[in-house]
């Protein structure tokens, strides 16, 4: 489709851009103390974006802007998640004490900019656009992670993030250049076609794949590109940590799925129940190792954490490992399980970080000991955190359990070659139960009854409730979500 008629399908992105511009101008008219009013504009803009996104939904896969961008149900699924993530982040950050009086205008602008980048990342069909969207997400994240300028941890986080991000995106770019040298095109589907036709250059394909993986692995925080995650998650403002742990991670997975399923796929059996890897490149084996090591390392290190933010950071690394299990089986079931689990993870992880934010605001602690007796001090928060912890550990009746069930089912169905990975995954779930239970024990078992309740700020509590409720509801009745994920399994393929 040519550029001008593509604009009709591009309205959500344009809406987002317009909101960003309006936000910048509106912020200039506000005093510093009033800057959290910009949250209203940002939230309204996101609602409009959501409306236009829903109305632009089509069940057909089209390519926009002369093959630059895919407009398909797959990208719609992720865009939907991104808009909701950004909305909740904007709302909860406007009430966060941590960021009180600290340039909310810029913060909201940056969150929306990252959302725009993620939109493009989930739908990019061209390596050039992949890189630009990737950097739009990364560079803005660097700024926001160092947002609390007077906090030492924040500066450390930003610096580490910049260094790791710069190195890994540089390596990824080198991988892109090798791929371009091999095929002579930047178009992902064209690359896939050429690679599957000629079998020469095995080593170069492998090297370029590993280099590109450095970039993608950094976005989803998988081993060995995970080092930035704990420090950045700990040092960023908690509202942004919540955003970072679900938004860019999901965007990275969307990119990974699209890239592997389009460029590194054997063209014989695309679009069927299973899809084949490129014959000369054993990337499923590589991904299997990465998945196993990522979840094991994340869970084992999380055992020793006393800071809840850090604990959740390592747990989110482990979850990246779980989600990766879905891609190694090379079936539609696996992709479906990944998407289902990502949306489940989105609900529970966002909620857990928001509880951390609220507890830190009201009781001034991010350590596990600070959660002692939370059930007496703030019963609603404690119960919600309990739901999120149960869901993250994968215990029924929560959506986390259903997600894990789908992932393991896809693995078992894939054949006996995947049993070892399934066993490692199951063992890891058991290990992870220990550290989630530590938080639960602090909240419900330790501490003493306190008479007076602390004053409640309504908005964040409402947001947390809005996230905790679907975690339970979808754990009992998950058909809507699984239908949505099934319908979104349509990736644009150009033959």
């Amino acid at each position, binding site marked *: 489709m040519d550029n001008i008629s593509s604009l009709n399908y591009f309205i959500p992105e344009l809406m987002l851009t317009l909101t960003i*511009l309006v936000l*910048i101008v509106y912020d*200039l008219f506000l005093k510093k103390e009033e800057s959290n009013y910009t949250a209203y504009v940002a939230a309204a803009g996101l609602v409009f974006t959501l409306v236009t996104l829903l109305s632009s939904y089509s069940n057909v896969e089209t390519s926009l802007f002369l093959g630059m961008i895919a407009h398909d149900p797959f990208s719609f699924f992720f865009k939907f998640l991104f808009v909701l993530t950004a909305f909740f982040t904007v709302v909860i950050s406007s009430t966060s004490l941590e960021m009180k009086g600290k340039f909310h205008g810029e913060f909201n602008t940056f969150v929306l900019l990252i959302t725009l980048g993620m939109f493009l990342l989930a739908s990019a069909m061209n390596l050039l656009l992949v890189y630009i969207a990737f950097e739009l997400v990364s560079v803005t994240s660097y700024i926001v992670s160092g947002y609390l300028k*007077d906090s030492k941890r924040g500066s450390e986080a930003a610096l580490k993030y910049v260094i790791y991000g710069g190195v890994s995106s540089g390596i990824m770019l080198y991988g892109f250049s090798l791929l371009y040298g091999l095929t002579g095109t930047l178009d992902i589907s064209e690359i896939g076609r050429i690679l599957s036709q000629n079998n*020469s250059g*095995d080593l*170069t394909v492998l090297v370029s794949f590993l280099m590109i993986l450095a970039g993608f692995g950094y976005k989803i925080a998988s081993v060995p590109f995970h080092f930035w995650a704990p420090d950045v998650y700990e040092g960023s403002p908690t509202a942004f940590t919540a955003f970072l742990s679900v938004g860019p991670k999901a965007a990275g997975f969307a990119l990974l799925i699209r890239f592997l399923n389009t460029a590194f796929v054997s063209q014989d059996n695309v679009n069927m129940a299973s899809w084949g890897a490129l014959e000369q490149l054993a990337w499923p084996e590589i991904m299997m190792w990465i998945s196993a090591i990522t979840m094991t390392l994340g869970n084992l290190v999380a055992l020793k954490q006393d800071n809840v933010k850090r604990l959740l950071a390592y747990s989110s690394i482990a979850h990246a490992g779980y989600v990766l299990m879905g891609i190694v089986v090379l079936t539609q079931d696996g992709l479906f399980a990944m998407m289902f689990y990502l949306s489940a993870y989105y609900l529970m992880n966002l909620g857990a970080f928001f509880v951390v934010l609220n507890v830190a605001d009201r009781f001034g602690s991010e350590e596990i000991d600070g959660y002692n007796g939370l059930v007496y001090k703030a019963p609603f928060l404690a119960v919600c955190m309990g739901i999120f912890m149960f869901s993250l550990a994968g215990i029924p009746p929560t959506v986390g359990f259903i997600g894990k069930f789908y992932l393991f089912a896809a693995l078992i169905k894939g054949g006996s070659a995947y049993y070892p990975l399934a066993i490692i995954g199951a063992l890891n779930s058991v290990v992870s139960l220990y550290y989630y239970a530590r938080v639960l024990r602090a909240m419900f078992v330790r501490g003493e009854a306190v008479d007076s309740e602390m004053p409640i700020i309504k908005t964040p509590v409402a947001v947390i409730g809005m996230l905790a409720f679907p975690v339970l509801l979808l754990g009992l009745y998950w058909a809507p979500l699984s239908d949505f994920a099934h319908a979104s399994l349509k990736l644009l393929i150009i033959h």
Partner: protein
Amino acid sequence: MLWDLGSVLMFMVTSLVIIGITLLIAKLFRRDNPTEEKLTSYECGEDPVGNPWVQFNIRFYVVALIFLIFEVEIVFLYPWATVFKEMGFFTFVEMMIFVGILLVGYAYVWVKGDLNWVLPKPKYTADFDYSNVPRFKKPDAEKARKLQAVE
């Protein structure tokens, strides 16, 4: 398979050899007559004063960055101007959107005071009330005076 990469190796070796040869030829044929002026570092015709490893005002960076953005905008305006006649009104709107987005950025730096070279009096002075800022210790008068002198 590895033999395919042999041409890459030859390319690297050849490029290294060629660099060596050119440097060698230049060394053989050029006049070697260093004077004091030739050996000083080039600073736009000025006599260099002191060590270049000094702290200088961070606002140079800000101004340079802003300048760069609008410089790039101008670069984009040139090819646009050459095709403007054929493409007509649509390109006009397109460029107005582009310039409009940059204008928002311009308004932002202007209002935030990044274009003012002479900033309002810095807060970091001896008589600044530090009681509101618990993390900072009150600096001694000597240090504050020094910092003001740097500003």
